[in-house]
């Protein structure tokens, strides 16, 4: 039996972040049709970049690969820290395309990041979309041309808000095929 592991980074402490983690567990279990196991993950201070004041997602994925349990089908980590890859200013999440591990950052999914009052519903909705998106990448799905699909490219928060927390018919078919493989 293979499990979908959802891991909380040690920085996930606040009530809102814990609620988001619960949403991630629920959505990946429902959409990928496998039992979910929780996993406590270590701090990611090693990935902190002093100059950019962000956390590098590449060393985080490398760490996740090292500690990924043998019975894990996929491991999705959730962090409150802002992630980046060297060539880009930030990423909402990062996944190994067709691999086993992925990470989602909650930092830019909160309304507060954009100077707006907190909104629990919007935050949880965005979290669900990003969890599906990054996990979808681990199943080999690439960005979808359908802007309402969870696999659509999201390079800003408006694009994420215009997506649905669901896969389009084409991506859902592709996903079923990949899951069977």
């Amino acid at each position, binding site marked *: 039996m293979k499990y979908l592991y959802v891991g909380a980074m040690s920085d996930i402490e606040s009530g809102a972040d814990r609620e988001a983690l619960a949403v991630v567990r629920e959505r990946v279990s429902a959409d990928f049709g496998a039992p979910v196991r929780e996993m406590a993950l270590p701090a990611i201070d090693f990935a902190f970049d002093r100059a950019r004041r962000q956390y590098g997602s590449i060393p985080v994925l490398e760490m996740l690969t090292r500690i990924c349990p043998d019975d894990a089908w996929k491991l999705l980590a959730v962090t409150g820290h802002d992630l*980046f890859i*060297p*060539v880009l*200013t930030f990423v909402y999440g990062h996944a190994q*395309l067709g691999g086993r591990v992925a990470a989602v950052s909650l930092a830019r999914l909160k309304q507060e990041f954009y100077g707006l009052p907190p909104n629990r519903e919007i935050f949880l909705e965005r979290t669900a979309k990003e969890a599906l998106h990054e996990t979808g990448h681990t199943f080999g799905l690439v960005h979808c041309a359908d802007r309402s699909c969870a696999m659509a490219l999201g390079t800003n928060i408006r694009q994420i808000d215009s997506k649905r927390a669901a896969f389009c018919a084409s991506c859902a078919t592709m996903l079923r095929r990949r899951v069977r493989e």
Partner: protein
Amino acid sequence: MKTHWQILVVDDEEVMCESLAAWLREDGYLVDTAASGREAVEKARARDYAIYFVDLKMPGGMDGIETMMQVRRLHPDASIIIITAYATVDTAITAMKEGAQEYIVKPCNPEEISLLVSRIIKVKNLQRENTILRKKLARQYCVHDVISKNPRMRDILALAREVASLRSTVLIQGDSGTGKEMVARAIHYSGDRAAKPFIAVSCAALAETLLESELFGHEKGAFTGANQQKQGKFEMADGGTIFLDEIGDIPPKLQVDLLRVLQERSFYRVGGSQEVRVDVRVVAATHVDLQQAVADGKFRDDLYYRLNVIQIHIPPLRERREDIPLLAAHFLERLSHELGKDIGEISEGGLKVLMDYNWPGNVRELENAIERAMVTCRGASLGEEDFSFLAQNGHAAKVWAPPAGTSLADMEKVMIAATLERTGGNIKESASVLGIDRSTLYEKIKRYEIPR
């Protein structure tokens, strides 16, 4: 499909290279990486990438600019994006001057890269579509695809092939609907101007002043309503071919202007004082007898001689009836796709109607007749009844009667001469059509003193 397009990311810093490559792969592109300029050039030699992301500062004696220049030598159309962490105005200017499509500073906003890549791919898709359509068009109008087994038409096509790559002016004469534009296109697409524009203008369709502006363009303010400068058809056809249909209808003033273009290869836009030079091959067509128009003083003789460098006369369909079955089958096949009707053939009876009809509207009329018959046809083949509208047109071939006082010998002479003309002087074919031996035909040609 994004996967048709391949991207090469060139950066000596592995983490930069791999992170950008991975991000682009998530977007569905096929991405390769190279750790140095030299490796990039090697990879470019083996494969043509749609986009190159090249880091500006790389060690090993080949920086981003040098890498870009070498790649551009291999692939002049390559889209190269220079990326750097150390942006200066000087490097930006150098990169753009040497042909970089964009210059971006890392780390860059994900939205910026995403928009940039999709914009380049959009242009590449359009360019590819354009190339495919051009090839399709060239194939469609190639001399090889003009349908005929008539000896005169074959001679015409052979001539069209011979003159295709020349710049000489061609004058195509023939009745309406015989396919003058088709032959003009065949000349254009079979020659070395095929990749350049083919511009067709109907000289009969426009009034004199409009035609002048249409052909030569106009300057802003040249006349009321000329709100901006406009290119004329001659400028649009630069490097290619202009097809002047119904040249016989061109007014006297424009005949002078046209003569000047043919002689000087230059003209002035309406209201303009600056000479515009063009390299245009002129193919003109008319259904009127231009020689007669010259004799009547309606057409300038100097223009006629300028146009009439290579003359092609397309025979009417009634003079090449052997092409009717071929053309009908061709239209049937093409229209079956266009109309979405599964009609496989024309019955013997249907074909007889087509063969007996006079076709005053020539090939165009035949095409229209097939289309009309297909629209109303209920069966799997076009029968006699599907072409009943042709008889109602009043142009069905009437039973022919010789003029009073004509002897059998006179008739025989006329028939042999007409058959020889139709077959291009081919004795074997003429004898076969007339149903006599070749030796008998020779003997009759001699007896009636028929010129061959």
